[in-house]
C-alpha cells in the first residue's frame, strides 16, 4: 500500500468502493476476505468431521455396514460431475481474465448445469434412502403399511446377521421409522477377530449381537451422512445462486482483464465445495466397500 500517492486525485474506477484507494487494494481485500471465509468454512465442516472421526473409530462395523448400502455409483458419478463443474468454473475465471464474454456465459451456464445435475443425483439418492427407511428421523421415511413381499415377522424369524438389508422391502414400517436389519458385517468381524471391545459393548447384549443396538449405531452413520451431504448440498445451492448472479453480470459484460474479482471469488467458493465432496465421497461411500469381497 505504500505505493499510493495519497494526495493524488483518485479517479473512480468501475466497481471501486469508497473505502479503498484503488482497485489493487480492493482486490487484495476481497481475496483475503474470501480466504478467511473459506478458513471459517473448513473449521465449520471440521466440527462434523470430528464427529465422524469419533464415531467411526467407535463403531467401524456399523459405519461400514451403513456405508455399503449407499450407492457408490451415484456417489462416484457425482464426484465426476463436480470435478467437471470445477473445470468449467476454472475456465470461467480464465476467460473472465481474458474478457471473453461469450465463453464466460457458456461456461457459467455449464457450471450451473453440472451443479444442478449434482443436486438431481443427490435428490435421487435421498429418495431411495427415503424409500428404504434410512432417514434417521422417525416419521420422515416412507410409511410402508402393507407389503406384498413382506413375510410377516420376517425380522424376528431370522437372526439379523443372516439378513441382507431390505432391498426387497421385507418389512412393514407403518410409522416411517428408521429401518435396519442387517448386521452380517458384525459376524464377519467377530469371526475375523477384529471387533473392538467398545464395539462389542455397543452392539451386543446378553453375549450376542443385538439388532436394535446395532441399528442405533447405523442410524448415527446415516445422521452424519445426511447432515454432511445436506450441508454440502446447501452450499451447492448457495453456489448456484452465486452463479446466477455471475451469469447476469457476465452477460452485461462487466468483467475484463482489470476487473474480474467477483468471478474469481465465486470460483474459490465453488472449488471449496468441490473439495469438501472429494473428502465426503471416500469417507461416506467407500469406507466399507472392501469388506464385500
Amino acid at each position, binding site marked *: 500500500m505504500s505505493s499510493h500517492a*495519497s494526495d493524488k486525485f483518485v479517479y473512480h474506477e468501475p466497481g471501486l468502493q469508497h473505502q479503498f484507494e484503488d482497485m489493487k487494494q480492493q482486490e487484495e481485500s476481497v481475496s483475503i476476505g474470501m480466504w*478467511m471465509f473459506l478458513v471459517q468454512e473448513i473449521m465449520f465442516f471440521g466440527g462434523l468431521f470430528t464427529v465422524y472421526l469419533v464415531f467411526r473409530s467407535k463403531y467401524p462395523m456399523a459405519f461400514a455396514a451403513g456405508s455399503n448400502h449407499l450407492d457408490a455409483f451415484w456417489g462416484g458419478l457425482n464426484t465426476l460431475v463436480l470435478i467437471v463443474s470445477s473445470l468449467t468454473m476454472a475456465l470461467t475465471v480464465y476467460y473472465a481474465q481474458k474478457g471473453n464474454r461469450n465463453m464466460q456465459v457458456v461456461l457459467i451456464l455449464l457450471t450451473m448445469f453440472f451443479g444442478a445435475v449434482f443436486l438431481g443425483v443427490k435428490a435421487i439418492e435421498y429418495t431411495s434412502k427415503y424409500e428404504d427407511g434410512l432417514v*434417521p428421523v422417525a416419521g420422515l421415511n416412507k410409511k410402508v403399511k402393507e407389503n406384498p413381499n413382506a413375510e410377516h415377522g420376517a425380522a424376528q424369524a431370522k437372526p439379523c446377521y443372516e439378513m441382507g438389508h431390505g432391498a426387497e422391502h421385507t418389512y412393514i414400517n407403518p410409522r416411517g421409522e428408521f429401518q435396519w436389519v442387517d448386521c452380517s458385517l458384525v459376524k464377519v468381524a467377530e469371526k475375523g477377530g477384529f471387533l473392538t471391545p467398545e464395539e462389542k459393548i455397543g452392539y451386543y447384549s446378553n453375549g450376542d449381537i443385538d439388532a436394535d443396538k446395532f441399528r442405533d449405531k447405523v*442410524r448415527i452413520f446415516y445422521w452424519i451422512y445426511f447432515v454432511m451431504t445436506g450441508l454440502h448440498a446447501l452450499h451447492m445451492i448457495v453456489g448456484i445462486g452465486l452463479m446466477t448472479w455471475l451469469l447476469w453480470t457476465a452477460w452485461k459484460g462487466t468483467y475484463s482483464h482489470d476487473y474480474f474479482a467477483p468471478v474469481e471469488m465465486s470460483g474459490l467458493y465453488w472449488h471449496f465445495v468441490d473439495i469438501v465432496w472429494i473428502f465426503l465421497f471416500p469417507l461416506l461411500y467407500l469406507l466399507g466397500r472392501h469388506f464385500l469381497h
Partner: protein
Amino acid sequence: MQNADAIITDSSGEPKVNYLTNGSTIKSWLLTKDHKRIAIMYLVSVSAFFLMGGLYAAAIRLELLTPASDLMESGTYNKAFTQHGVLMIFFFLIPAIPAILGNFLLPIMIGAKDLALPRINLLSLYFYWIGGGLTLYALLQGGVDTGWTFYTPYSTTFSNTFVMAVGLGIFINGFSSILTGLNFIVTVHTMRAPGMTWFRLPLFVWAQYATSLVMILGTPVIAITVLMLAIERAVHIGIFDPAIGGDPILFQHLFWFYSHPAVYIMILPGMGVISELVSNFSRKKIFGYEFIAFSSIAIAVFGFLVWGHHMFVSGQSIYAGLVFSFLTMVVAVPSAIKMFNWTATLYKGSILWNTPLLYAVGFLGLFLIGGLTGLFLGSIGLTVHLTDTYFVVAHFHYVMVGGQVIAYLGGLHYWWPKMTGKMYSEFWGKISAMLVFVGFNLTFFPQFILGYQGMPRRYASYPEELQVLNIFSTAGASVLGVGLMMPVVYLVHSLFFGKPAGDNPWMLPGLEWRTSSPPPTENFETMPVVTWEAYEFGEENGLDTEEARRREAVSTVS
C-alpha cells in the same frame, strides 16, 4: 498530507460535519456502512445486554445471601445463572471490546477510511441483533436452565426449557463474531495507511488481530456444535445420548475446542486496551513492543491446545491430563511477559493518574490474581479438588470482569472524548473506578476461599457454615453494582453537558488523536502518512506540546 501543524486543530471554527451529524434519519443509521456508527449501535445494544446480565447477577448474589434457596426456588436459580452466563459471555464479553472499541478505532488507528468490508460489518451487527433477539425471546418465554456450557445429555434430553431457541441464537450470533474477525484481519492486512508498517501498529490492533484469528478458527466449531445440539434436541438421533450409542464427552470436546480459545477472545482485546492505556498515560513507549505483540499471537495459538483442562475430571486418562496440564502451564508465560512489560513501562514515565489509568492499574492487580489462580487450576493435582467449585467461579470472574470488563471501561473512558467529542467527569470517573475495584475484590476474593472449602458452583443452597463468606460476597456485589452503574449516569450526562474535549485532550501520538473529535465520516480529511513508531512522544513526531501547554494554562485560568 497530514503533518505536524494539523494535529491541534482549530477549536474556534464552526463545528465540522462529523460521523454523528452526517445524516440523522433512522435509515441513515440502520443502513450505514460507517464503522463508527455501527460501533455506536453495538455500544447501545451490548450495554443493554450487559445490564440484563447484571440484573441476573444481582439476583444470584441475593439468593446466595442465605444458605437455603428461599429467594428463588432452585429451578429459577438455575435459569438465573444460565442466563447470566449466556448473556454475559455471548452477548457482552465476546463483542464488547472487538465490536465496540475495535470497530470504532481499528480503522482510525491504522489510518483507513473504513473497515475493508463495511457491508459485512453491518451484516454482523444484524446477526448480533437477530441472535440476541432470539435469545431474548427464549428468555421471555421461560428461559433456559442448562448452564452456559449446555452439557449433554442434560441439554439434549432432560431439560424442559428453551434450549433450541437459545442455541440458535448463539449459532447466529457466532456468525456476527466470525464476520467481525474476518473483517479485522482483512483490514489490518490491506488498509494500513502509508508508512504504517506492522511494527508501527498500536498494540490494540495487534490484540484485535490475534482475537480475530481465534474468532475465525474457533467460532465455526461452536456454531456447528450448537447446530448439532439443536438437531439432536429436535429429532433425537443420539449423537450425544449414550442411551442410544452417542457420546456426551464428544460434545465437551467440540464445545471446549471453541470455548477455551473464546476465553482469549474475552481477554486479549482487554490486554490490547491496557497496553494503550499504560503506555499513553505514562507518555512513554511501551516496554518491549515486540514481546507484547508476539505474546498476543502466542496466546491465540497456544489457546487452542489446552481445552482438555476443562475435562480433567471427566474420566480423562492420566496421559491426556498431563499433556493438557503441561500446555496450560506454557500459556501462562506470554501473559506473565505482558504483565512485567506493563509494569516496566511505568518506570521513569510521566504518569497521569486519570480514570483510564486507574482502570488500567486495577486491571494489573486483578488480572494478576486471575492469571495466577489460573495456575492453580492448570496444575492437575490441585484442580481435581477445585474443579466446579467457587474457586473456578472466582478465577474466571477475576479474568473476565477484572480483566475484560475493567479494560473495556478503561478503554471506553479513554476514547469517550474521541467517540463523542465530550469530556466525561474526571471526578466521578475516579470514584467509580475505585468503587468497582473495591467492590469487585470484596465480591470475588471470598469465593476463592469458598471454593477451596469445596462449595460447588451452580448451587442454589449451600451448607450453613459457608454463609459468612457468602455475605461478604453479596455485600461486595452491591458495591460493584453501584460502581458499574455510575458510568452509565455520568457518561450519558457528559453527552449533553460535558465540556468539549478537543481533538487531542491528552496530547497523545496515536493516529486516532490526529483527527477531529468526533471524527468525520471518512476518518481523516487527507490520507495520513505515518512517519513515527507507535507510542513515540515528542515534538519531532508532530506533538506540539508547547502549544498544548499554553492552551491548558489558558483554559485553567479562565
